[in-house]
């Protein structure tokens, strides 16, 4: 106890001293700037390689040069069918059509592959896949989570904005700028202004503790969450841990934190949730389809008294008391705009509030205010003087500029690293979530810098970046093992082969729907949560699971905090309250049980079987082969044909002989709510057996892995 008191006392002292500017937490900013990720990327020389005929691009030269220094030879190229399945899932999250596979297998030229890549990048399905990657780090969800878990009925607009922006290949710097300060950017039309406002939903869709009594605490938690998502999603480092003390490992001080906090405290966040009970922190929403309003900061008087603002004599007394306590005056909040009426288009997002500076809070306690910190940015990242923040503005516009300006050492590196991660299963910096001192160093630092610099100089185009990487020879390697290489680099850190990867939850479900021929690719432009409206989600959220939008792509399934659809949650969907750059991959029995027994899986398998049976002109063996081509993007081998035929023969005979099992006496709730689409009694043995076979393919490891 004594020692912990001692530690506390020392920390308190340090915090005070730091706040007073007399000492800085270690490491100091100058030392901190020498850390690799805080230095601007440097253009590296393209390395020379011994096997000059192997590389197809500079990416390959960097990879091969490292392999050669270690004496490792890359394995051969992937066969065309494997490669096409890989690139199709990687870029669109969907399997290739069998016809395309055969066409490419017949002409596997680099030109043919490049054309296919261009088609995939141009497909609207691309944004649905790569937009979802961003939604993972944007901790996108359609409810507040925490103790009230109120719905965000308008959150889907932000989701669709992300998908549309990725499809349009909006330059990544602009993509970030609009999400941080879209409301402050020039817009040539009401529609564009609306889109820019929707983009700021990035700052509004985070988890919120609506039950919090203390307004100041709520606001500081809101700000903390915004600092966390902005710093981690864009910069790949955590600033939020400097809320209570200087960062222990990275040169990020509490001053940095409260400098950013001032920017977000000068911003008004509008997330809805007005009407329901137990909500102590209601908000409004932004009206769409209207001309830009004057910033709240310019307003001289508020039309209605604000409940948090002391008025008149009481206010003066409060101010005097605060002054006597040597604390800053309580900052008045900007009044909430009126809630746009139900039925009119509305969005979550932010707008300018009353500009204010934030007081540093000792140990992050709202009751222990320290000195006021001027608004600003993270000092260690100020490689050149940061943009000044005008007194009458929040500083968000300057923050957006600062995040994306060319001298920022992290933004481009973090973005290209994530692209690499989603194409190889692992980033060049393995800890894609942490570019700080506790993170790992890049395996290929020169390649990372090369990609980051060219990403910026080529106009921050994600599509160009991905195109270059997937056209590299490195990406197109086979997944076969090589004893020599495995001995020297068992984890394939240096990329001498392609590492087999399990598909993400969305790709697994979407692929099942696609091969069964029932995928509905039309974007819904809404969400089941929109139908719920402004209400707390408890039991009601359950009924949203997979039931609606049953054939839509998974990116459009409702994401309710605490109620992630089973088909997503079981396969390691990103926790929607956390910034997740790199999802887990597990292979556990609950997934096996889901694939063996779940009603949705049986339904999809039935559709797959009927698709196979619908073509009356096919022999059973041709039908099996067709199933393999649809499910795995390859023909069945003779052994597989024989095995499947034998399976079907035995299964049909057994099903014909044995009556169906009785309905479970104790069906789980999901099953009670929705009667099975097609009962076993209504199906002939052949259909049951083919359903069983189709399910076996969908449940197999090959279906959910990329080689």
């Amino acid at each position, binding site marked *: *106890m004594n020692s912990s008191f001692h530690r506390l006392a020392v920390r308190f002292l340090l915090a005070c001293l730091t706040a007073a500017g007399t000492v800085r937490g270690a490491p100091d900013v100058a030392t901190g700037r020498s850390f690799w990720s805080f230095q601007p990327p440097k253009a590296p020389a393209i390395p020379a390689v011994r096997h000059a005929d192997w590389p197809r691009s500079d990416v390959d030269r960097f990879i091969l040069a490292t392999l050669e220094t270690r004496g490792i030879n890359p394995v051969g190229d992937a066969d065309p069918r494997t490669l096409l399945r890989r690139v199709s899932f990687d870029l669109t999250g969907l399997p290739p059509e069998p016809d395309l596979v055969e066409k490419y297998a017949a002409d596997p030229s680099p030109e043919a592959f490049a054309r296919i890549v261009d088609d995939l990048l141009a497909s609207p399905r691309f944004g649905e896949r790569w937009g979802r990657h961003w939604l993972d780090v944007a901790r996108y969800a359609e409810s507040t*989570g*925490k103790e009230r878990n109120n719905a965000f009925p308008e959150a889907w607009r932000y989701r669709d904005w992300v998908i549309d922006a990725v499809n349009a290949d909006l330059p990544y710097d602009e993509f970030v700028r609009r999400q941080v300060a879209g409301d402050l950017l020039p817009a040539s039309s009401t529609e564009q202004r609306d889109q820019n406002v929707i983009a700021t939903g990035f700052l509004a869709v985070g988890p919120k*503790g609506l039950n919090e009594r203390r307004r100041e605490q709520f606001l500081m938690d809101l700000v903390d969450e915004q600092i966390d998502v902005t710093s981690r999603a864009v910069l790949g480092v955590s600033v939020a841990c400097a809320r209570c003390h200087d960062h222990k490992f990275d040169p990020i001080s509490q001053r940095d934190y409260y400098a950013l906090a001032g920017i977000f405290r000068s911003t008004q966040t509008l997330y809805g949730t007005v009407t329901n009970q137990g909500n102590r922190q209601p908000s409004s929403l932004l009206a769409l389809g209207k001309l830009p309003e004057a910033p709240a900061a310019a307003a001289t008087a508020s039309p209605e008294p604000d409940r948090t603002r002391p008025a008149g004599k009481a206010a003066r007394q409060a101010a005097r008391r605060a002054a006597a306590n040597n604390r800053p005056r309580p900052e008045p909040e900007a009044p909430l705009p009126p809630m746009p009426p139900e039925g009119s288009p509305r969005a979550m997002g932010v707008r300018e509030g009353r500009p204010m500076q934030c007081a540093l809070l000792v140990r992050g306690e709202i*009751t222990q205010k320290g000195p006021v910190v001027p608004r600003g940015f993270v000092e260690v990242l100020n490689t050149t003087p940061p943009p000044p923040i005008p007194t009458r503005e929040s500083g968000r516009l300057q923050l957006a500029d600062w995040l994306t300006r060319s001298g920022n050492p992290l933004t481009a590196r973090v973005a290209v690293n994530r692209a690499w991660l989603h194409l190889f299963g692992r980033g060049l910096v393995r*800890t894609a979530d942490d570019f700080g001192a*506790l993170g*790992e160093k890049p395996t290929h630092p020169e390649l990372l810098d090369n990609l980051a610099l060219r990403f910026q100089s080529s106009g921050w185009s994600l599509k160009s970046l991905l195109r270059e990487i997937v056209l590299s020879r490195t990406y197109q390697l086979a*997944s*076969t*093992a090589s004893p020599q290489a495995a001995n020297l680099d068992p984890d394939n850190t240096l990329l001498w082969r392609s590492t*087999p990867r399990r598909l993400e939850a969305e790709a697994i479900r979407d692929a099942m729907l696609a091969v069964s021929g029932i995928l509905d690719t039309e974007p819904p432009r809404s969400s089941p949560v929109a139908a719920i409206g402004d209400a707390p989600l408890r039991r009601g959220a359950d009924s949203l699971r997979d039931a609606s939008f049953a054939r839509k792509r998974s990116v459009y399934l409702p994401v309710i*905090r*605490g109620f992630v659809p*089973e088909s997503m949650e079981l396969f*390691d969907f990103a926790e929607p309250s*956390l910034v997740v750059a790199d999802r*887990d991959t*597990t*292979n*556990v*029995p*609950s*997934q*096996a*049980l*889901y694939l*063996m*027994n*779940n*009603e949705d899986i*049986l339904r999809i398998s039935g559709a797959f079987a009927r698709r196979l049976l619908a073509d009356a002109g096919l022999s059973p063996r041709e039908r099996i082969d067709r199933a393999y081509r649809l499910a795995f993007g390859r023909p069945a081998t003779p052994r*597989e044909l024989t*095995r*499947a035929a034998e*399976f079907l023969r035995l*299964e049909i005979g*057994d099903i014909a002989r*044995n009556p*169906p*099992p*009785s309905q*479970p*006496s*104790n*069906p*789980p*709730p999901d099953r009670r709510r929705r009667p*099975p689409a097609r009962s*076993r009694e209504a199906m002939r043995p052949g259909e049951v057996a083919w359903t*069983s*076979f189709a*399910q*076996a*393919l969908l449940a*197999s*490891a*090959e279906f959910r*892995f990329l*080689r």
Partner: protein
Amino acid sequence: MNPPMNAPYSCSGVQPRPWSRRQLLQSVAAGFGWMAFSGLAARAASQPAVQPSTTAPLGVRPPHFRPRAKRVIFLCMQGGPSHLDTFDYKPLLQRDAGKPGQARGGGAQLIGSPFQFRQHGQSGLWISELFPNVARHADHLCLVRSMHTDIPNHPQAFIQLHTGSSQFIRPSMGAWVLYGLGSENENLPGFITLSPPLQFGAQNFGSAFLPAVYQGTRIGALRENNASASLGNIENRLLTDPQQRRQLDLVQEMNHDFLQATDGHPEVEGVIQSYELAFRMQSEVPELLELKGESPATLARYGVGDSATDSFARQCLLARRLSEAGVRFIEINHGGWDQHQNLETALRRNCRAIDRPIAALLDDLRSRGLLDDTLVIWGGEFGRTPDSRKSDGRDHNSKGFTFWMAGGGSQPGLSFGSTDDYGYKAVQNPVHVHDLHATLLHLLGLNHEDLTYRYGGRDHRLTDVKGNVVHGLVQS
């Protein structure tokens, strides 16, 4: 309901496939059959301390030293139950009720407990009238009256109770225990949580950076009717068991081919293993979850069927059955302990809901000889304040509250530590949540400083850089 199966591959009329369980037993060297192998390892029992292998992550691992407990039943009370009205008797609070309290900002007054306390058993532990049945077990209880935690806020405190840290995503204690000791039953998950609150996320039974095999398996959810709670997706409406086994054999044959095609990729092997375990779970789990085998007398003793107790009674009875079946860490949940108001009525209702079921669980564990090596723990994320601005409520108190333990090597009939005269704050022998974690691991034969996992460049523990074993809680 499919007929229960005696053997996982009793597929009548079907030839066993090359990798049926029988063959798996013979092909350990090829990397298959780790489940069977772990079963054998469990029986062999005297292995040196080892890291869990990649092929047998759930195999039984020997503890660091002789354990007092083999398994844990955690009775988790979400919301922060009032220690002042249950297990922490405060005569001065009764005397000074109505006087100004210490709450920041003023305006609060001390709230005397509306409930009578008296001493119980040889040990003379003070327990309130709310727990007449649990009080029968006073001489088996080890009251920890000096608990404290960091943050008086539900989500943070609840997560810290479960993972040690509300600030970072960390593995839950059940995951750590399973990682440390492995599973005693190859056909069941080693860590099961019944009816947990979902609003704080799966983190409370998650494995975070530990391999996912150590995460808790959730059955039901708080405030859901748990009479029909089941492990999801446990039955197939389309196929009979032999038909499904034939289907699974086909899947596994394809998986085996794919394993070869990927040169033995460990994740593909993980898929193969997951199917075998899933198939066995299908037969074993429904048998366990159904309470049909229990006599009406037993059901009545727990309170099954009585609307006041039914939900928690089922959980307690399941906890007994799961502990008998060899599940390593069982958490059962009761919510709604957040009495900012309505203290008397709500607390009476809550305690009634759990008192009889818990007493029946303790009775059964004792009579079956399980209490000696089963550590039962009761408590919530924090306690409550002695004062309030409302006349019939109490607010969050992270600075002092009560947990109790029973069995598993905890010191019976003990009251350990204390809060101040009003119950604001732990003052004597304070026990932080980190200390509770260290002690729990200690009773299981694990040194909390040695149970580590390398992640993000450093070795992590359940207790992070903190925690001390509270030896006073350990039976001498």
